[in-house]
């Protein structure tokens, strides 16, 4: 059988539409930060999600209710079943030496905080920056601090931390870093990419496209005019790959 069956062990509501589900699987799963799972709720669709934490048979999913399936997901209760296949795709390469700047926007902070766990285990230096609409939607600032990282919140409405867009803040500090890991809305990613090109900082960015098969066969997740596949070649792409693309669609 291709699906692993998990049980919801706990639900943490960041807001009414943004929740973290801790899932217990029957067997251990080895997921690299940035890789994704295909998550199926029978009767609903199957969707890609990048865990915000994973260890042995525990996976934490941080989900924003944007449509039918994600809304159903965030309404799950402890004990409910959840079906996952994967992990799929390429995650972040955390073995590169240097000082890391971690940038997560919205639920895009999920694979970023998971990267923070791994980086702190590896003993790499990292600063965590999270962008959110307001303090209410802030996700992992406390967690990042508990990991011993400097953690900076940037809110659009200034309700906490630095006011503004995460990209504006990052522009100011990027020069101090060797490598940037980013995940979030596509306009944010494009800005980050351009910044990194200008400043000569290395980067790895996680992109979204509509993922249907998850295994590089249906073509639905194609990104850019070189035919990159988000589910197979990504979702995390490095700077060299991204520089090759023309992002007319979004810029």
């Amino acid at each position, binding site marked *: 059988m291709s699906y692993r069956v998990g049980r919801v062990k706990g639900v943490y509501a960041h807001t009414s539409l943004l929740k973290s589900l801790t899932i217990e699987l029957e067997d251990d799963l080895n997921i690299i930060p940035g890789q994704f799972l295909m998550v199926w709720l029978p009767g609903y669709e199957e969707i890609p999600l990048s865990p915000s934490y994973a260890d042995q048979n525990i996976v934490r999913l941080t989900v924003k209710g944007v449509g039918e399936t994600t809304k159903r997901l965030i309404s799950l209760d402890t004990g409910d079943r959840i079906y996952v296949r994967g992990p799929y795709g390429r995650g972040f390469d955390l073995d590169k030496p240097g000082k890391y700047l971690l940038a997560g926007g919205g639920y895009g902070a999920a694979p970023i905080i998971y990267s923070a766990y791994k980086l702190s285990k590896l003993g790499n230096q990292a600063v965590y920056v999270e962008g959110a609409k307001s303090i209410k939607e802030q996700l992992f600032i406390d967690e990042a601090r508990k990991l011993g990282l400097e953690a900076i919140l940037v809110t659009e409405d200034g309700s906490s931390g630095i006011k503004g867009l995460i990209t504006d803040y990052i522009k100011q500090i990027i020069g101090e870093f060797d490598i940037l890991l980013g995940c979030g809305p596509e306009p944010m990613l494009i800005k980050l990419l351009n910044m990194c090109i200008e400043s000569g900082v290395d980067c790895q960015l996680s992109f979204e496209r509509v993922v249907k098969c998850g295994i590089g*066969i249906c073509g639905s997740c194609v990104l850019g005019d070189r035919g990159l*596949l988000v589910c197979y070649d990504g979702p995390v792409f490095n700077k060299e790959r991204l520089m090759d693309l023309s992002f007319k669609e979004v810029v």
Partner: protein
Amino acid sequence: MVDLRVELAGIKLSNPTVLASGILGDNAALLRRAAKTGFGAVTTKSFTIEPREGYATPIIAEVKAGLLNAVGLANPGYKEIKDILPKARVNGVPIIVSLAGSKIDEFVEMAIYAEDWGADIVELNLSCPHVSMMGMDIGHDPAFVANLVGELTGVIETPVFIKIGLTDNYMEVVSRALDKGAAGITAINTVKAMAINIYAKTPVLSHRYGGLSGPAIHPIATRVIYDIYREFKPPIIGIGGVEAWEDAVEFLLAGATAIGIGTAVSKHGLTISKVVSDGIRTYLEREGFESVRDIIGYVHRK
């Protein structure tokens, strides 16, 4: 140095590997990438008159011996051929345009359009097992297929291949299609099947039924290719569960001129085409053949 070139109804392929229809193929960038990666020819996703969203996910179910899919012929509609084909063309790699429809008129309209925009071969998907009134539903009717092929070969000059699946009467369908001028046969499509998740207690695919591909269907495809070659010796694009060069050689010996690869792209990436064609080359060298053409249908010569 052995010769890997083959011809499909006059269309020249630098090597016998072909990207099968529906695999990454409704996007110019992906077709281009596949062509660059070493495929001898690439096939587009099956186009229909109207754009189709396809089915809701899950559209894929992994099973022990292969893969089930019910993509539902998701495609942007045949008018996109105009945008896709010119961009997809690279290094002279031939492009096979796959078409799916329910009526002869639809096929005629699309085939002319495909020819106008440079299709090297038009492949008629008469065998998709999971969309009603298309594919298999029409492809098992020899009279319909004969009419369809007759009409098409009357209006376009591009070679027409029919893509068949596993039916009771594929020999009759093939015979009638060849009589009416079909230039070749693509065999086989996926086989209708189902996977049920025992904890969810429901079929996995949103469409319930899907098409079985991968290693599971390889021996079935070998039989179909063998049958068709034995009887009619047309150009055949053999497809079904090829995931190593040995599988491809098996098809060549059975009578295939070219080798379609689908599911294995997921396991091995697009470089599977290189792996397969390199393997065929080494095999030919070791077995003392000069050209891949020397082994096409070889088992029938004994």
